[in-house]
């Protein structure tokens, strides 16, 4: 199958949805600019015109209300906030209004809108440009929340999100935009609410969200060399959440390791652990574990990036401990001086 980068997959999904339905439009700070939100909206204004792809004032709260209103009027907006951190300004409109619109008017009107939220990371994004607050949205009935980890799912889930008549939060991790993977041509949908098993294995179930799914996949390869077969599951959607796939997996492996892109405390990893504990209780071979960020805001110094962000190596050592195999961290490949970028092509200032 043809390979695309994640950002290209997001772009292609947007393009196809716009071609298929004239009510789909794209709005957000910078969606028409020369960077095109890390390439995801590049050229769409030229193709569909300024009436369908448009910049906006710096007013996240009000503009989310505007976007909601336009959805009530029959449009299908795709709104983009370049960081979740900026969308904190818009929580009222997202959570009180959009999420509840259908409910609070007794189902008379739905609010079909997609809000793309980007999780920043690297090159000193620091405390206010890197939060991964997906668990907040997952807590809110009325929203659907997806956070695909592969180009194929990015495309399939964005198409599903745009076609969904409910408000859908679509979370993209900045370190996924440049990964490459097979992406089918044309319109296809990834179902919202179904997990994807990225890798089969019998020894431990690693449930990993967004960018951590990538790290988990890497970890699984290392683990395989140590004789440990990890099953890697990307929930893809955290509301609705496909607990069956996770629980069936853990029922087989008896071990659950969850890796999240956010803080552990009161984060979504807790929900995954809780679901499994409620269902499988004492049938686990060892206590479940969570991997997440240390309980502090994101430090800016590049020297602290490797302390702050867990990686495949952390997943490997946790998994090793859980199966009571060798617990040593596998020798890391010659580490770059700083761990604040995913690859050498990722440089500042952004």
């Amino acid at each position, binding site marked *: 199958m043809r390979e695309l980068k994640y950002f290209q997959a997001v772009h292609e999904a947007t393009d196809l949805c716009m071609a*298929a*339905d004239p*009510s789909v*439009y794209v709005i957000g700070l910078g969606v028409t600019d020369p960077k095109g939100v890390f390439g995801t909206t590049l050229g769409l204004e030229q193709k569909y015109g300024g*009436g*369908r792809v448009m910049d*906006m*004032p710096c*007013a996240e*709260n*009000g*503009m*989310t*209300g*505007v*976007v*909601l*209103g*336009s*959805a*009530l*009027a*029959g*449009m299908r907006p795709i709104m983009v906030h370049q960081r979740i951190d900026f969308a904190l300004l818009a929580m*009222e*409109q997202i959570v*009180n*209004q959009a999420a509840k*619109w*259908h*409910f*609070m*008017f*007794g*189902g*008379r*009107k*739905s609010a079909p809108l997609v809000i793309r939220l980007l999780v920043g990371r690297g090159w000193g994004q620091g405390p206010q440009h890197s939060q991964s607050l997906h668990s907040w949205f997952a807590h809110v*009935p*009325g929203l*659907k929340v997806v956070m695909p980890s592969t180009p194929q799912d990015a495309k399939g889930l964005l198409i599903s999100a745009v*076609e*969904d*008549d*409910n408000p859908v939060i679509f979370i993209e991790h900045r370190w996924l935009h440049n990964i490459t993977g097979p992406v089918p041509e044309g*319109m296809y949908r990834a179902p919202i609410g179904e997990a994807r098993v990225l890798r089969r294995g019998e020894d431990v179930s690693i449930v990993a969200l967004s960018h951590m799914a990538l790290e988990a996949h890497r970890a699984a390869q290392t683990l395989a060399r140590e004789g440990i077969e990890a099953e890697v599951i990307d929930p893809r959607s955290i509301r609705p959440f496909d607990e069956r796939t996770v629980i069936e997996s853990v029922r087989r492996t008896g071990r659950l390791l969850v890796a999240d892109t956010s803080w552990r405390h009161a984060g979504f990893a807790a929900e995954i652990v809780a679901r499994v504990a409620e269902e499988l209780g004492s049938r686990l071979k060892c206590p479940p574990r969570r991997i997440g960020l240390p309980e502090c805001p994101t430090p800016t110094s590049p020297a602290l990036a490797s302390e702050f962000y867990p990686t495949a190596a952390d997943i490997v050592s946790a998994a090793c401990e859980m199966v009571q195999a060798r617990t040593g961290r596998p020798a890391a490949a010659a580490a770059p001086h700083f761990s604040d970028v995913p690859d050498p092509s990722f440089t500042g200032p952004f």
Partner: protein
Amino acid sequence: MSTLNSVGAQTEVQAHKKLARRLFRSMLRIRLVEEGVAQRYAEQQMRCPVHLCIGQEAVAAGVCDLLSADDQVMSTHRAHGHYLAKGGNLPAMLAEMYGKSTGCSSGMGGSMHLVDLEAGFLGAAPIVGSTIPIAVGVAFGSLLRGEDRVVTAFFGEGATEEGAFHEALNFAALKRLPVLFVCENNLYSVYSPLSVRQPPGREVFRLAAGHGIESRRGDGNDVSEVHAVAEEALQRIRSGAGPVFLEFGTYRWREHCGPNYDNHIGYRTEEEFRRWRTLCPIERSRQRGLEEGWLADAEVDRWSDEIRAELAAAMDFARSSPFPESRTMLDAVYVERKSPTSAKRRAA
């Protein structure tokens, strides 16, 4: 020529009278419904917060008279008057307050979440300021769809303190959207007077002017002034000249939330209330009608009877309707897509 002129003048006079009578009846209906709600509220069967608009009827009546069913209205916690003036279904409103399945929001929303899509009343919600950008978005969406309609956002002067208000105004001005912003300045936000919330001497409508939006203030207790000012505003908006902001001074008679009077609890004076009571929009309109000869007291009585009968029937409907089944609350969270376009799109 002179005959024609006088015929024209006569028609105009007739139209004026007809309008004045219509506005009067619209206000009277809001008043009597609100009083009916207040009366029944004490029975503790309408178990949700209600924000009555008694005293403020002229703004709703005067503005909504100028709107077609296709024009859209959005409102706030204090929405009853706007809903009724825009043609919202009365039995469904009352049933909503009683939390019944026949309510306009199937009992999910209560008094603070009124809706009547057929009447072009798109929704009301009680987070101060938040429906203003949504209303602007409805206008924007309509524009994108090539539909020709005006969207009116009603709100109180408290809402003009919220950032959402300003963000909405900036966008409406930027895109020259067909939005009528109607601010009912009743001097209070709950129990807080303007003096603790906005700088002295800076009139509310100046905020809109700051955004480059055409803005005016008028007497919100004079329904013909409201109508005249709104008519001019709507002409301007329909001509494509962009949004207009109107501030109407008015006064709420009863407590912020609930059916009672509360002038004794100390946040405002009985005297202030009495002064405003003499400016009752309905009484002023009645006086003028009697003077100008387009209204007779007998007619007021007849209309009152009609409205009371309508209200009684609506109350009966509301009170006798069933409560929603418990399943409905979980069913109402998400909509599953059934629209034909999606089927078409999926087949493609």
